[in-house]
């Protein structure tokens, strides 16, 4: 009688261990806490393992949309000092049946981000052997940043070219007028109301004696 009772008590964990150890549907997990967190690293203990099992149960719940998954459905074995172990997921209906590998993989992939965050780790430091991490989507810009900088530079260059060419043209025009103004002086005719262009040729202008600036004589 006693033997029977003892067997009944110890059988489930033994069976559970067998389910975990020999199964094809298990995944090896590896954590590199010290690499990931450095000085803020926490100790890996039973409580952390409890958290892991519960997050996996959560992942299974979300994936299968069944609220029946509990922490007892996640079986763990092959614990090492490295902090690596193997886990399997048992079905909610039948504790001896395991959820196939593909289902577990999908569940983990969908929720990897939440699992990582629960442990403050990343895809590099919390590895599921055989489940490649889904890499973040590449950043897609509306306009490539390099085109923006290119546009700015080309705009500045265009402004520079136009400014320099305009200054050359206006310099040439002024030089032509200066030459035209000089040649008029040679003829000896000075036009008072001459065209603005020709008077620009002479810097001094015409001295109008009607208006004289003799301030120095008017001081009292």
């Amino acid at each position, binding site marked *: 009688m006693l033997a029977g009772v003892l067997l009944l008590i110890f059988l489930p964990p033994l069976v559970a261990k067998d389910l975990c150890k020999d199964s094809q549907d298990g995944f090896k997990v590896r954590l590199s806490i010290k*690499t990931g967190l450095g000085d803020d690293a926490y100790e890996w203990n039973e409580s952390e393992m409890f958290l892991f099992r519960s997050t996996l149960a959560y992942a299974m719940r979300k994936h299968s949309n069944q609220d029946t998954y509990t922490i007892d459905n996640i079986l763990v074995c092959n614990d090492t000092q490295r902090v690596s172990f193997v886990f399997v997921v048992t079905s909610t209906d039948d504790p001896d049946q395991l959820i196939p590998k593909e289902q577990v993989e999908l569940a983990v992939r969908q929720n990897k981000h939440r699992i990582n965050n629960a442990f403050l780790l990343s895809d590099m430091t919390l590895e599921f052997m055989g489940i490649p991490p889904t890499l973040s989507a590449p950043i897609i810009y509306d306009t490539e940043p390099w085109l923006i900088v290119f546009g700015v530079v*080309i705009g500045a260059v265009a402004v520079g070219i136009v400014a320099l060419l305009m200054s050359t043209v206006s310099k040439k025009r002024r030089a032509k007028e200066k030459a035209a103004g000089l040649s008029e002086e040679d003829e000896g005719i000075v036009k008072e109301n001459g065209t603005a262009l020709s008077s620009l040729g002479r810097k001094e202008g015409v001295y109008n004696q009607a208006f004289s600036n003799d301030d120095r004589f008017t001081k009292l």
Partner: protein
Amino acid sequence: MKLKLKLPNPGLDERIPSHAELEKLELEEAGERPQWDNKAQYMLTCVGFCVGLGNVWRFPYLCQSHGGGAFMIPFLILLVLEGIPLLHLEFAIGQRLRKGSVGVWRSINPYLVGVGIASMLVSFMVGMYYNTIIAWVLWYFFNSFQDPLPWSQCPVNENRTGFVSECEDSSPVDYFWYRKTLNTTPVIEDSGGLQWWIVLCLFCAWTLLWVCCLRGIETTGKAVYVTSTLPYLVLTIFLIRGLTLKGSVSGIKFLFTPDLDELLNPSTWLDAGAQVFYSFSLAFGGLISFSSYNSVHNNCEQDAVIISIINGLTSIYAAIVIYSIIGFRATERFDDCLNGNILTLMNTFDLPEGNITESSYDGFLQHLNSTVPAVFQDLQLKTCDMQTFLSQGVEGTGLAFIVFTEAITKMPISPLWSVLFFIMLFCLGLSTMFGSVEGVVVPLQDLNILPKRWPKEVYTGLVCLVSFGLAIIFAQGSGEYWLALFDGFAGSIPLLIIAFCEMMAVAYIYGIDRFNDDIKFMIGHKPNFFWQATWRLVSPLIVLLIFLFYFVTTVSKELTYIAWDPQSENFPTLETKSYPDWIYAIIFILSGVPALVIPAVALYKLIRNRCCAKEEKHKAAEQLYSISDKIQIPDELDRASRSLH
């Protein structure tokens, strides 16, 4: 002194302005020829022309590969014996004859016009490919304004399970350079089509150059205040940044560790000589042009010495900065390699983290090797050797676009360092391009091929436009291979020939006596024995030796190029491939045509003189009775009267 060899040179006095005429020019400030606003502009332009990309990415590599600190010895010796004399020669002859390269050689002897034309051709071809490198620098500069930098991580493949395979096998920086920037084809025959982003960057580079060179030295003189000084500022910033990074000192130590045995190797001396020669941008004609805008009594001897010293010191300074960053990168790579191995060991043997540290790594390896050798072999641990990392691919474009960019991604605030670095490279390249454009535009004006009344803006614009059009070949998929071809053949051999001809022309055709008198007139004292010995014997000999060495090695070996071929067995190592046969025609055009122009033009002039000599004799006999033959109108009066109208 001893018998000085001088070849007969009739009519020299008619072709060049005399000392009296030069004094008059000085006082009148003849407005036709452009002038420097101040001495600083001239010095900065020359320093900018000499200090270029080679100082940053060729000299440090040569230093490290030829015995570190010991390389300084041949470099400094050849700087003094080869660089300074040639520089002084070009400055003096430009300042004395007050013309660009074609004008100067035509004044010395009309048969020597070929030397000027060869300079122009070489300046044109080198300018073409040099500005393409600037276009690449601009591309990287434009791409530096984002975080994370595009070359810091591999792009993901379609189903987001991993990285693109080409990137996975090599590295993100390699992938960005060879695939995203160049989009290289595996072989040079495969053109790969035009890469539109490179065409845009080329367009940007050439228009930027045009806006700075628009009115010749009027505009470049202003631009050099920025382009010649900014590199020094950035180098200093990088030095401070570099020295605060881990592992930088090991890089500097690696650079300067002297290996005196290298001095016995002749290729060390030849590489030092070649580096000094190319570093000074001699024989391009640009320096002669720049010097001709100086006042007649400018102290060109002092200028030559100062610029040479600045160039040498800049090379050494840049080498220190570059290698401090390379030391940092090598240390990072070494640490990554070691940590990767430690991780592998921990994962295989399920050891807790922190059990193996970098210091206990070696001890642990030995322990493993003795206890479980079989497993140990299977592990395939990578060998982490600091020396290998320090000596990885560190010259040329590989240094700037692969090694340095990788180092930048490992620094905090990477985009800032990237922007600074590429601005520095851009300024270094642009200031060299100013001299190149000058070396093409001024001979074009002197040769009177295009109408003289066209303004300078049209000349510079035309040169930039044609160069841009031809440089499109570098925007193809195979563009990098073409650039390496140009780099190897357009700039190397013709320049040596031109420099040799320059020295022979000045020393023996112009006459060393006359040249000494000219320098005495210009700066007040006759050049001393050092200049005499170097101009007449030592420098030409060194240039000849370097030329012979290059010629013999190029002709004797089979010509190969290194290609990026993802399909090759040794990928990601670059594969050595041999050129197709039609490349030899291209090489002949690049190297042979400038060199052969010198004798060809002389021959052409000889034939023309011979057959036209008879006709001229008839004409001279007819005109004996006109007054204009008896009265000689001096040249400047003629010029002055022309400018009034």
